[in-house]
């Protein structure tokens, strides 16, 4: 028993409040924003459980979780990619347009008679090349991430419009089979399922987690967001330039994967898909506790952010409110989190 513990045990018995405060102060500051996310999530689930549970079915259930993941798997993948970019202090506005471009490309490639594996690989590579283009513009030509990704957003949207301005149906057998594949658990109202999109999204999240926290590359990503333009990363012997290009390639690739998932979800491609989707992704990342100035955040927090985001929509639908309330509520939640971030940042200084 250390002296400190001796003192503590011999002192007055700590009240719940002081104990909680002590636990909070012993917690790494970096976890505070994510803690806010988890509290929000718990609060929303509590409200849902309170208001929408019936005698026979609980609101908080595996069914809810599986529905959230199925409906938001593409957003999860987008947000994971966006987390990398935002951690370096950058931004990627092109992802929504890339999703549209990928969806239409998939439809067009199937019409041209390409086999399923080729289509999927090319679809993801379209996203990768869009990301590479942004990365090169940002790193080599010193163009702000905001404007570089804006240009690629216009580019992808324009190309999507060139392919088609009508909704194209995707009716390939293999693709439909992939979309329909799933494991079902439970019966009747307790039914929940696991499908391909969900597994892909979870795999992307897991890989991102491992890369960010257990690799040199991950350290470089956090280092770039430190606000010294990569000087520290450089001094550590890591590679700032390469990393800065790579985060956009990762974000683009994630957008490509998300495009495939969205195509699986809707079984069609449409040029107006994903207008504002980049903002949904950014919002999920911010709600998930990543600081927009870069350097602080967790990709698992982003996962929680996506759940909060999806839950807002579920609660609004359950409440019977019109869908535009979603935008207002997301704005309010975003506002709350940004102010929370700000308060924490002030405390830190």
């Amino acid at each position, binding site marked *: 028993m250390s002296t400190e513990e001796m003192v503590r045990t011999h002192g007055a018995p700590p009240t719940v409040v002081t104990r909680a405060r002590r636990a909070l102060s012993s917690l790494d500051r970096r976890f505070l924003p994510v803690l806010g996310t988890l509290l929000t999530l718990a609060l929303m689930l509590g409200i849902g459980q309170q208001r929408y549970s019936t005698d026979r079915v609980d609101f908080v259930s595996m069914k809810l979780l599986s529905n959230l993941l199925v409906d938001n798997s593409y957003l999860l993948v987008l947000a994971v990619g966006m987390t990398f970019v935002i951690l370096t202090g950058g931004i990627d506005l092109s992802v929504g347009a890339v999703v549209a471009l990928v969806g239409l490309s998939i439809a067009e490639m199937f019409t041209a008679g390409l086999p399923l594996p080729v289509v999927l690989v090319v679809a993801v590579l379209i996203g990768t090349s869009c990301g590479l283009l942004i990365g090169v513009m940002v790193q080599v030509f010193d163009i702000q991430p905001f404007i570089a990704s804006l240009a690629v957003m216009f*580019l992808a949207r324009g190309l999507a419009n060139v392919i088609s301005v009508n909704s194209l149906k995707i009716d390939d057998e293999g693709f439909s089979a992939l979309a329909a594949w799933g494991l079902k658990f439970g019966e009747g109202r307790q039914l929940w399922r696991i499908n391909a999109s969900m597994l892909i999204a979870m795999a992307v999240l897991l890989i991102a987690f491992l890369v960010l926290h257990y690799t040199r590359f991950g350290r470089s990503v956090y280092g770039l967001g430190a606000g010294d333009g990569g000087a520290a990363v450089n001094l550590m012997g890591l590679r700032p330039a390469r990393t800065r290009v790579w985060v956009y390639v990762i974000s683009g690739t994630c957008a490509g994967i998300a495009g495939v998932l969205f195509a699986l979800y809707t079984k069609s491609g449409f040029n107006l898909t994903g207008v504002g989707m980049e903002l949904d992704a950014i919002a999920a990342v*911010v709600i998930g506790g990543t600081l927009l100035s870069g350097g602080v955040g967790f990709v698992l927090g982003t996962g929680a952010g996506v759940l909060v985001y999806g839950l807002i929509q579920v609660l609004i639908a359950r409440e019977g409110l019109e869908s535009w309330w979603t935008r207002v509520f997301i704005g309010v939640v975003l506002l709350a989190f940004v102010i929370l971030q700000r308060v924490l940042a002030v405390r830190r200084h």
Partner: protein
Amino acid sequence: MTPTTPAPAPAASRGAAVWREVTHHGLFWPLLALVLLILACGAASPGFLDVTVRDGHLFGQIVDLLRNSATPLLLALGMCLVIATGGIDLSVGAVMAIALAVSLTYLDNAADPRAVPTVLTAIVLGLAVGALGGAFNGAMVAGLGIQPFIATMILMVAGRGIAMLITKGQITTVTSPPFKTIGSGFFLGVPTPVVIAIAAFVIVVVVVRRTALGMFLESIGINREASRLAGVRARRTTWTVYVIAGVLAALAGLVYGAPTMAADANNIGLMKELDAIMVVVLGGTKLDGGRFYLGGLLVGAMLLSTLERAVIIFQLPSQTTPLFKALVLIAVCVAASPTLRAMLRGRRRADREDTPAAPVETTNAAEVTA
């Protein structure tokens, strides 16, 4: 990276020095693009450059171009001031929608939508709402110190929902000739949107360049803390700039929506913030803040609407417009980038991985001293 100071040149290369100075001007590439584009349009469509007078009003494709430039110019005007302080305003599109929704809803509920006082009240209400939106952005940025990008994104996300709440999810349509005039009328033969945009431009230029405000904006954009220590009321000035941007966005919304008199909360001003940012960038203002060219906005706004027009003239599907916007944007940005110039001069910059990164901050400081 120091600003390019040409080596002492022999007399023979003075022409080259002048040429370099001209091509290095921020407006060189956009202006060149604009001239080439207008010439190309003129070649493809013989009557393109003709301007005729009908009923005392100016008509012609060039006049239409000017009319179409009005909205992006109004938006870019506010955006440019915000960017000068090192900020960005993503909410302008949503503010356009809210302002129009408020104005038309008021007109719709008024006893006589045609009465001039009613119309004036509607306009003032719309502008006031814009000011309110701007004040909210300003409070977030200047008051709470939140990054402008995310602060204005909140209104961008929520704003469209708010506009939908105001119109109750409907597309509100009203008939009111006096209100319609601000979008499709003429003043001394010139389309009203053009008159409004130019008037706003002149007022902003006079206020910013004839008073110390412009200098304050630039000093805040370069170093907020230093300018505050030097006695600039950074907080109040920043706040004011967001309010101005909000009012201009609201004005743009009214002008944009007046010809159809339909408040479509979902679509009015959609992606217009990006057009506005593009106009600012095309106009030679860098997004880093600290230096801005209002004159460039005229070129930028014209370039944007000429581009939109050219797509139609060359009989390309109008949906391909974003593609060309992207190509122009990329071309202008890359052409203006120091890296490309260094490459062209054959002095390829050493691999950045070896040099202790010469990133944004350093570049900024170098430009400031220029």
